[in-house]
């Protein structure tokens, strides 16, 4: 059994907005956390996620705990397409004319199951962040990847392990 190398791509982000790394717990499937750091007054967000369908199959996407800290929320499950490897238009918004939430936390959790050995990039696309005035928030994205253990010859068990870093570093002008 061999564990493939894990390489995190680091974007050029000001030190004041250094991005934490999020890891994924191994198990029968994988849960990748979409995390945000350093945001102020986040009221709503939307993103797409792409992955390699030869390696991963998305199974679930659920709301993270960050936005509900502001109050009641309304979550939009993204549309999973495991043929092309996308989850499109996952979104979440606070309900009511109240303020957003500030700080860092998990926006959403994405569950995967293994589709085959290899390394899959996880890329954030079409990200939108809005504050409580519905004004856009400027941000930086950091993509991640999931690496899957290559099974031993003769083994039918597809073991799965991954680490993942996929974060948004956010700063307000």
């Amino acid at each position: 059994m061999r564990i493939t190398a894990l390489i995190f791509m680091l974007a050029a982000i000001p030190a004041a907005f250094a991005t934490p790394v999020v890891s994924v717990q191994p198990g029968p499937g994988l849960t990748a956390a979409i995390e945000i750091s350093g945001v102020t007054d986040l009221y709503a967000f939307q993103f797409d996620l792409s992955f390699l369908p030869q390696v991963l199959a998305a199974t679930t996407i659920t709301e993270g705990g960050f936005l509900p800290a502001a109050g009641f929320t309304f979550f939009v499950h993204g549309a999973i397409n495991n043929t092309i490897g996308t989850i499109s238009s996952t979104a979440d918004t606070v309900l009511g004319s109240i303020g957003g939430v500030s700080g860092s936390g998990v926006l959403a959790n994405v569950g995967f199951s293994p589709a085959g050995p290899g390394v899959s990039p996880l890329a954030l696309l079409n990200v939108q962040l809005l504050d409580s005035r519905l004004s856009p928030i400027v941000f930086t994205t950091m993509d991640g990847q999931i690496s899957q253990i290559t099974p031993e010859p003769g083994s039918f068990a597809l073991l799965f392990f991954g680490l993942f870093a996929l974060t948004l570093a956010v700063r307000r002008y």
Partner: protein
Amino acid sequence: MANPAGPGQYAVDVTPLRGFDQSVSLSVHGLPAAASASFTPGILNVATSGGTPPGSYSLIILGSSGILSHAATTNLVVDGTPGDVNGDGTVDCADLNLVRAAFHAYNSRADFNGDGVVDIRDLAFASRQIPAGVTCE
């Protein structure tokens, strides 16, 4: 008169005087937010959306040809409740569900900012109209 998600049409007549035979370009000014206008021969089409603020607006239609110009005014009345997709007079969870559905199946009534896409900007616009303390699934 125009409804928030319905098109309004105005007849536009250009009548030449004293032998004028040049082409005339038309433009419209004074549109409210999240509304757009286009001209087809003889018609001014005004499209509003659920995000167009209700109210009465004075539209100025300007006809120009070289240094010549002439303006005419008309009135646009937008009624309704911003964020009210189903037109029942209130913004509630049913409207949010319609906006959510329009993420993948475009619905112009849920396109509050009139940008041709229903996304988080439209959903957040509607969600801000929801009374505090209300929960939606």
